[in-house]
């Protein structure tokens, strides 16, 4: 999923300051799973902003709504009937959600309330970790299901570097050395010989070759 964290409240307050009628818009998908922009977080942010407005005697209307997904047109369209009541949207979607909404409604500013972080997994309660770069050419098979591009601090395809110590990464002892994980896992499958091979330079054109990527599936089109 896509993970995100809420921006500092002062930054949000500064961005919405010029507006009088604000829709705080949540998203019940990825950002709900990482407890950043779901229904609950949206209600909490709206109420915090209302309270701050009252304390400062500002005459502002702040209401909230949560869509199933902000990044899918079929759901965004549900805003058609209510948007006349607002002069700004404060979105708790990921970067894709913010832009999908903005793309649909050209005349109303859409302000991000979150910092979108990474593609990752929910490791534990309150713990999310990055494990995919979305490189467009998955190599997990070769590395025992551990991605060195996302999880090695130097993105080495032929690691580990000289900074692997006791299974930890020199860059940050809180993170495991991805190459130690790769070696441990491949040795469990008797597949360490895969690492004798020199992996060639990554083809980054699949990630950033010609600007933003798109997927076209004719079988899915109406």
């Amino acid at each position, binding site marked *: 999923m896509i993970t995100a964290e809420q921006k500092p409240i002062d930054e949000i307050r500064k961005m919405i300051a010029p507006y009088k009628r604000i829709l705080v818009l949540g998203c019940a998908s990825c950002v709900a799973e990482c407890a950043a922009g779901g229904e609950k977080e949206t209600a909490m942010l709206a109420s915090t902003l209302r309270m701050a407005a009252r304390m400062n005697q500002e005459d502002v209307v702040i209401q909230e709504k949560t869509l199933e997904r902000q990044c899918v047109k079929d759901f965004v369209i549900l805003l058609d009937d209510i948007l006349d009541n607002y002069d700004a949207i404060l979105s708790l979607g990921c970067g894709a959600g913010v832009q999908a909404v903005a793309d649909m409604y050209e005349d109303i500013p859409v302000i991000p309330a979150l910092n979108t972080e990474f593609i990752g997994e929910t490791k534990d309660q309150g713990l999310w970790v990055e494990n995919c770069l979305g490189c467009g050419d998955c190599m997990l098979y070769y590395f025992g299901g551990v991605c060195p591009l996302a999880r090695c*601090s*130097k*993105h*080495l*395809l*032929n*690691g*580990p*570097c*000289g*900074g*692997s*110590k*006791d*299974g930890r990464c*020199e*860059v*940050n002892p809180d993170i495991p*050395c991805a*190459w*130690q994980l790769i*070696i441990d896992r491949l040795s469990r499958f008797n597949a360490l010989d895969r*690492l*004798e091979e*020199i*992996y*060639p*330079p*990554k083809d*980054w054109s699949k990630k950033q070759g010609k600007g933003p990527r798109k997927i076209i599936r004719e079988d899915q089109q109406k």
Partner: protein
Amino acid sequence: MNSSHSLKQILGQGHFAVTAECGPPKGADPEIILKKAEYLKDKVDAINVTDNQTAIVRMSSLAACALLKSAGLEPVLQMVVRDRNRIALQSDILGAAALGIQNVLCLSGDHQSFGNQPQAVGVFDLDSIQFIQTVKAMRDEGVILGGESLSKAPDIFIGAAANPFADPLSFRVTRLAKKVKAGADFIQTQCIYNLDRFRSWMKQVADRGLAEQTYILGGVTPLKSAGMAKYMKNRVAGMDVPDEIIKRMEGVPKDKQREEGIRICVETIEQLKEIPGVKGVHIMAIEWEEAVGEIAERAGLLPRPAVE
């Protein structure tokens, strides 16, 4: 040291090679490099110039190598893949060769978070092994990545680093084998203080036949103080400083610790000379280039052999 490719020739003729390291200044003054060069002249066969080591902005390694070259010394251009993508790396290899720089050490580089620009993007488009392979193809086949031909191939003696002291131990020799397979003509190791572990690594290296396929130069760094020894042990990843070394440094008064550091360094070099497969020594006297001559003298490495 005026002749071309002296490091390659010295190793090829079976002499025990000596290289040193020289860090460029945090400024635009060429005099600092030239002064360091003066200390090292005729004491070593070639001089490594570090590439923004520990991710701290310094004068470019390529420019400092050109200065050394013009002063009649043979440089080893260190290049890290942290700051340049494959276009820039290949371009700089061509530029280096055009300037007469003939030795390149291909490295990953210290992570940008350690230095004074922690907000920089870490490029790492190629890794050090892919970079070695790229330089080899440029030299031997006259082609760049993707196969396009060069008008003139760069004549580069290709070096790489090895750290016998990092983890996982079982994989360190495999990684060296990959560097050799990629095209590393010579290897300079991480600083050696734990000779037992280095010997057991060298044995595995020799057993795999790697000591005949590449020239291995053992890295040494003279300690300036007991504090430096402890710092390296505790704070520098991939360093192995045994307690005996720290005790030895602590056992002498502060004003004698530099002398003790030089003595340990000389003893280490004498041991390295006896280890099968070790073809030379790389003396990294960090901001202490003036110590290199004395170390080389006392370790019986002077005068340096003349090459054609």
